[in-house]
């Protein structure tokens, strides 16, 4: 005859087993990446920066410098990249596609050599409207960047709406990035909502998308 007390360890085991299997299932292949850290910058204004253009740009590649003020007025992507970063190279065609579709993309060139950055853009094409060079890495820290590439969606008011760690995969273009860009393009509705004490709405929305 089993006493109820003997069932307690079994019950604890069962609960933990269920918890762990749910978690394992979530992080399984194609699941969520647990090394990704949620951004602390969501719904905050983009940090202040004033970054110079890439040095010794050839005549064929005239890309102006980048400051915070440039980000205002239109929804845009800000992509932090470097020529030495392999995922940046893999991601590049996706950025080219986005640029072809009329998305404004700004670049922050992180700790790169100008000649390498120029070679990268000459070989693979230039999707960037403007590029600022972050040679000290300080601006990237202000954005909360910890891996490369990272891509931010900045709305017309210059607020960060979404942060993507690592490369944007081709399949994420339609399923993730374009819908988010559309969502970020509705500042009026969102701002009104935010004003009406519903700041949480857009936050949870972004968090959900980040987890998918």
């Amino acid at each position, binding site marked *: 005859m089993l006493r109820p*007390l003997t069932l307690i360890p079994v019950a604890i085991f069962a609960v933990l087993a269920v918890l762990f299997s749910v978690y394992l299932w979530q992080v399984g292949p194609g699941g969520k990446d647990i*090394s990704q*850290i*949620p*951004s*602390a*910058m969501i719904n905050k204004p983009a*940090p202040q920066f004033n970054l110079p253009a890439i040095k010794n740009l050839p005549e064929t590649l005239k890309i102006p410098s980048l400051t915070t003020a440039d980000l205002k007025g239109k929804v845009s992507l800000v992509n932090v990249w470097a020529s030495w970063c392999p995922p940046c190279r893999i991601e590049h065609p996706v950025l080219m596609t986005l640029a072809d579709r009329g998305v404004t993309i700004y670049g922050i060139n992180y*700790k790169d050599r100008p000649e390498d950055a120029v070679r990268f853009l000459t070989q693979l094409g230039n999707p960037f409207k403007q590029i600022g060079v972050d040679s*000290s*890495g*300080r601006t990237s*820290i*202000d*954005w*909360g960047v*910890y*891996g490369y590439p990272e891509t931010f969606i900045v709305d017309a008011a210059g607020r960060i709406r979404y942060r993507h760690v690592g490369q944007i995969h081709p399949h994420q273009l339609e399923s993730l990035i374009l819908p988010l860009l559309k969502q970020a393009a509705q500042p009026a509705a969102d701002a009104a909502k935010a004003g009406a004490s519903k700041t949480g709405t857009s936050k949870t929305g972004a968090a959900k998308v980040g987890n998918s």
Partner: protein
Amino acid sequence: MKLFLFVAVLLAAPLVAPVISPAISPFAPPAALALQPDEILKDPALEARAREISKELRCLVCQNQSIDDSDATLARDLRILVRDRLTAGDTDTETVNFIVERYGDFVLLRPPFKNSTLILWISPVVIFLIGIIGVTLWHRRRRVAVAAPVVPLTADERARVDALLAEKPEQ
């Protein structure tokens, strides 16, 4: 009594282990610093504060090392940033907050006590209490069992025991 001593030793073990293990472990990491000489501040007091702050901040690339331990580029940049903030006259809290504003609470190796971390902080205490209750119950039951009155052998049983004791071993 023996039981409580055993429990006490078990509880004390994690407190003692970190103190003795670096000395006895053959796999202890070398004493080499991630900190480069050019990062070190001239003012020893400021440098000491920077070291203490760096030990509390997570390297976001390695994620299980502090920026004081990590050789990652970002860790180095953050170490220099911490020193720049301190040199600029920030307090320790201001310096830490500066980095938390950018990277969130995850950058703190010691998670803050807030609503979202309640389970994290409360669960060890709860589990400890459950354990204490369990051990107490088990101990009390055992004492009751031991203290149960001794029933003397019946004459029949006594005779069987005597017969068994009188038996000679096989060899």
